[in-house]
């Protein structure tokens, strides 16, 4: 089976630029998988490793970063990792070629400045064609030359999708905690103020009470 889903996004904010879903009636891409792909792309930053394979329940995601663009694909678990990265390399080449064709050297600015999701969706047929070429992983693996070039891929990190996406959750947790902290500190501030007042009351209260009592006595005396 060919790669099931391919997406290209901007690394800085995960804004999707091109995407394709295989029109393979046999294996539909579920909206959960779409969401996972979206989440992975959004969780990436400049600090993330340049390549990674991410294992989800029944599929594997592979991503690769090049020139501030991120290329992501999803395959079946049995799909060879090397071929997947070979495919992503080819997608990246094709996309950059198309971008250069359309915008010449200006394409980086175009990519940086776009605000509209899927701005380059019209490259979708190109990726689809590549994707079809990777239909039979075994057949293309006969291409041993390329296989050897990709020997270094063995070193690529492998992570579980939960770990990757949990980072988001952890961040959420941290932000929740900090929000709570903020709230608590506010409460604390209020408490501190209250305490100060109480202290002042304790300090000056008796004096004020005494003085007013004296005045009251004097007043009553004067009236009498």
């Amino acid at each position, binding site marked *: 089976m060919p790669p099931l889903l391919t997406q290209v996004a901007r690394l800085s904010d995960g804004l999707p630029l091109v995407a394709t879903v295989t029109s393979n009636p046999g294996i539909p891409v579920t909206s959960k998988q*779409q969401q996972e792909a979206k989440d992975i792309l959004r969780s990436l930053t400049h600090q993330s490793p340049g390549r990674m394979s991410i294992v989800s329940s029944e599929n594997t995601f592979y991503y690769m970063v090049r020139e501030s663009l991120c290329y992501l694909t999803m395959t079946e678990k049995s799909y060879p990792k090397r071929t997947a990265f070979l495919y992503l390399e080819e997608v990246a080449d094709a996309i950059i070629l198309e971008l250069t064709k359309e915008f010449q050297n200006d394409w980086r600015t175009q990519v940086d400045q776009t605000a509209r999701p*899927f701005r380059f969706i019209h490259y*979708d047929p190109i990726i689809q064609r590549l994707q079809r070429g990777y239909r039979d992983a075994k057949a293309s693996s006969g291409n041993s030359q390329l296989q050897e070039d990709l020997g270094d891929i063995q070193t690529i990190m492998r992570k579980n999708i939960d770990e990757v996406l949990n980072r988001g959750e952890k961040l959420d947790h941290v932000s929740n905690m900090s929000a709570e902290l903020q709230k608590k500190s506010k409460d604390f501030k209020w408490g501190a103020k209250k305490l100060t007042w109480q202290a002042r009351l304790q300090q000056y209260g008796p004096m004020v009470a005494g003085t007013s009592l004296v005045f009251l006595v004097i007043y009553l005396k004067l009236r009498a």
Partner: protein
Amino acid sequence: MQPPAANSAPPPPNQQMPGLMNQPGMVAQPGMGVAPGMPAENIDFSIKVPERLLRFTTGSIPASAGLQNSSKVPIGGIITPLAPAEDEEEEVDTVQPGNSGIIRCKKCRTYINPFVTWLENGRRWRCNICAQLNECPSAYFCHLDETGQRRDKDQRPELSKGVVEWIAPTEYMVRPPQEPSYFFVLDVSATAVRSGMLAHAANAIKESLDRLPGKGRTKIGFITYDNSVHYYNLAPDLNAPQMMVVSDLKELFVPLPDHLLVNLKESRSVVESFLDSLPDMFAKNPVVSLSCLGPALKAAFTVMKQIGGKMLVFQSIMPNLGDGALRPRENQAAMGTPQESKILRPGTPWYKDTAVEFSRQQISVDMFLFPYQYLDVSSLSELPRYTAGSLHSYVGFNSERDGFKFESQLKKRLTQHTAWEAVMRIRCTNGMRITNFYGNFFIRGNDLLALPNCTPDSSFAFDISHDEKNMPSSVCTVQSALLYTSSEGQRRIRVVTQAMPLTQSTKDIMESVDTAALCNLMAKRALDMSLKSSLDNARMRVQQTCLDLIRTSKGGRTVSGYSVPPGGKQQIDKPDDDEIPSQLELLPLYTLALMKNVALRGGTDVHPDERMVAQYALNAMSVTESRDYLYPKLFSIHNMLPEAGLPHDGDDDIPVAGRARTRLPQAVNLSCERLTNDGIFLLDNGIQMSLWVGSAANPSILQSLFETSSLQEIHSLVSTPSDDFGKRFMNIVDALNGQGNVTIVREGDAHLEARFFWHLIEDRASFQGGTYSYEEFMKFCTDPNASGGMPPGMPTSAGPPGQRGMPPPAGQRGMPPPPGQPGMPPPPGHPGMPPPPGHPGMPPPPGHPGMP
């Protein structure tokens, strides 16, 4: 930014100045129906949605449920969300959301619009639908001016215009924007091939290939079927398409899923060679009357379901194999009885179930039918109905006569602007509720209209009713939001918002009625009722609504309640005259036209398929379409002026049509009294045109139109006329609908003439409840008690062809001639058409003030 376009209302500035408050009916009067918690809104009612997009039956909304009940006006609207702009100024503004995203109410998800209230110097805003107080995101903050409006209002279309289109961020996408895809499911039985339908379809598809929307992403695929299903492999590297036949209809398997729905750009040559060979491929098909439409639909669904898109189905005979097989249900004895509704309802739930499944996968069905006998359109039409598609029928398809019309309609459906995987939601101010939707869609959840495709032709109507006794606010706002993917792969949200003042007076409501919109809504309600109950009840309801309205408008000047603003009093003292207010004067005419329309008319001579096609069309019509459809235009051709049919410049009231501003001939009333046997008349209802040729028509005109001077030899119009008269006539035909398809009706032609006379709605018809002529109906409306509140009895023997010989209405029992009809309006002036001369044989009302 441009100032609010398409705005004929009072000038926009100065909204909050007291000056505008003086205009009656424009501004909610302070203190009216305002609950203590709500401030009187700062609403600029001059911000209006263009009529082509949204029209309401009334301009003012009753402030309480009681008032709505007593005024009897159906409250609702008709929305055509993608109606094309007529000129550049009317183009809808596009808004790119900033860092704060699209601003929406956090409680009811209403989109920000010009009618929200800004508070606390712009830090908060109050939703005009649910009254929720929302924080304004800091990135969107702007100071208010002294009138409480934001200072950046004019720079932001979403705060100054009734219609805007947002570019949707990724949160509004479940999947990447889909590719525009077109999948053709073609009947290739011998009937379909012999009629020439297949050749025309192949030709039209081929000619449209260059103009399919999609910028190189467009996908295309084909399935043909007779008693088996045929797939076509259109892989780009093939020289010719490969055909695969699957004859096991129970266990359909899909071979080679990759290349059945292919990228058009890549496989262009294979697709073209397929279309070239298609008609010949099945030229000798031995299968005459077997059709497995159901399995073919399932097969197409399997191929398309990953992407969605438009499925075009071409069917000539009744499907009778596999799932979805139909059987003849026609029953002549049931015609004209309450049993008829049974035939109009679908015979099997299979098509609805399939349609719902299609809708879920974003597939819309456009159905083209070529019936030679009963096809059970009632069942088949469920498929386009619930998938927001269209239905076209060419009865007794004749290649020569209907080929051109079919091709041009198919090309239009293929190349028009199309919105994909769309959903629409309509919201309205709390206290009121949208109760019913009419049109073609499937409702997901409570109120989300699922529209796999939405085109400029798609119109939807809705009823609004009171949810609470009194409205908690002084304004009623209706907002519709259509989320869709454009053919270029952009996800967009078209937001249409309109605020309307509430009123406590029946008079305000009556004066703000939009009759054409009202009739559109009445028609759609009646269609609904005709299926749920019966045609008789539907017609009765239409008639009752009309009578109620006329009665309220004349006598119903009561002002309800105690919160009457000063100034409301004097309305009561007005003398009660018999005049129908000018807004409503066409209501009886349209009502009569609706009752006599093919969709609802009684009698035994309307074929159920014919009626269903008409009902389907009417159910999805916009206001202008339904007005022209119900009350068609009848032009007298034989005596048209020498200037008619030539381009006309200038903005005077001379009626013109089309892009070239072709001057139209004189329009006449829809009554057979107007037809003379030496005349030639052209009838246009927006869907179809008919040319009635009198038996003693001028031979020289016949010569120039048909190239024959004998009435008997007339078959079709000359396509390229040689003389001036013929050219001018063709100009008129082109200007009216551009499809050049005219049915020729010779005087005395039994079948066609009967159908032609159905359109002459000012005459009597021979079914229960339709026996009124226009004059009689007018009389009945203005004074229902005079005729006992019941339709006058009529001998039912007088069939339509006999109508022309009917005695004048004056001789009818219990129907005195109408001297001085009170308030009889002229026939409707279609835009820019001068009122045709008054009714012959009807004395003009002497010096009546209501007569324009």
